[in-house]
């Protein structure tokens, strides 16, 4: 299958993603420049980590206005898989493709360490063949990963929580220990931990590969992910 990895000025995990997808998982990868507007017939878009546009204004805010983003939005609207990792997650939040916002870490410190997170939803192309409650280990590396949403929104998106920190110590102060969320349809997923930094044994964990392998199998076997159950608030509307 063919992945498209979007490169923004300031991305710094783009080549880690490209390396894992191309050299570890033997997939076709196209590098998509943020200033282009076409996605070049890819099956899955990955927004990598880094500090796009220096995180000016707010992390991900300027990147969300990039020429490539309208194409990413229509790609997402067509139901195809989109993954945002760390800064890529922040870009998806700022672009309105995912609910919520990021605040600075509660500790006031940049957190760079291994974390454990649990799979909370298997109704996404990136988790469909994992187990609910399955624990994955991968590193976080961010200063603004404190997931925030007002309480009513948090209640509303409870079923869109895909990953939760599975530790006593929440690394960044995220509301309800949220490490990753998806959109209502489930095809757009964002997470703060870095699966591309946990895809080779030499790096301490290969759990990140499970996320990439899930979407590869999803696309190549045309698997179907069951739709997300409607949230209570939505059902009441």
């Amino acid at each position, binding site marked *: 299958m063919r992945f498209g990895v979007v490169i923004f000025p300031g991305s710094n995990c783009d080549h880690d993603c490209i390396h894992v997808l191309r050299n570890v998982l033997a997939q076709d990868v196209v590098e998509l420049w943020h200033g282009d507007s076409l996605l070049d017939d890819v099956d899955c878009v990955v927004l990598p980590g880094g500090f796009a546009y220096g995180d000016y204004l*707010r992390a991900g*805010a300027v990147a969300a206005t990039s020429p490539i983003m309208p194409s990413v939005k229509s790609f997402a609207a067509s139901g195809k898989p989109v993954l945002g990792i760390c800064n890529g997650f922040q870009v998806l939040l*700022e672009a309105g493709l995912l609910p919520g916002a990021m*605040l600075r*870490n509660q500790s*006031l410190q940049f957190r760079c360490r291994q974390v454990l997170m649990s799979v909370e939803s298997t109704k996404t192309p990136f988790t469909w063949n994992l187990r609910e409650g399955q624990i994955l280990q991968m590193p976080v590396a961010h200063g603004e990963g404190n997931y925030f949403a007002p309480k009513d929104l948090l209640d509303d998106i409870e079923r869109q929580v895909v990953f939760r920190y599975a530790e006593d110590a929440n690394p960044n102060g995220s509301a309800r220990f949220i490490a990753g969320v998806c959109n209502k349809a489930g095809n757009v997923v964002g997470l703060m931990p870095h699966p591309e930094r946990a895809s080779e044994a030499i790096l301490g964990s290969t759990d990140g590969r499970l996320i990439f392998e899930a979407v590869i199998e999803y696309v190549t076997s045309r698997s179907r992910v069951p739709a997300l159950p409607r949230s209570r608030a939505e059902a009441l509307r």
Partner: protein
Amino acid sequence: MTTVRVVITLKPGVLDAQGQAVRQGLHALGYEGVSEVRVGKHIEITMPDEASVDEISAMCDRFLANPLIEEWKIETDALPSRRPS
């Protein structure tokens, strides 16, 4: 051309880690009476004289601020009174 000032701050109740760090710094310098610091952004936008507050408000809503966590104030006194044409 006219220059408009926009002040963006985190909504009350939203954790302002930067403000807390600045408060710690002030305490370290002996300003122990400082009970809270909130840090925001000050943006100056230069636009044609006919710029409307609505337009600047739309900029804040769509891009300059994140309405989920931030609020903004447009300092309209920066808009000079219209010159007679």
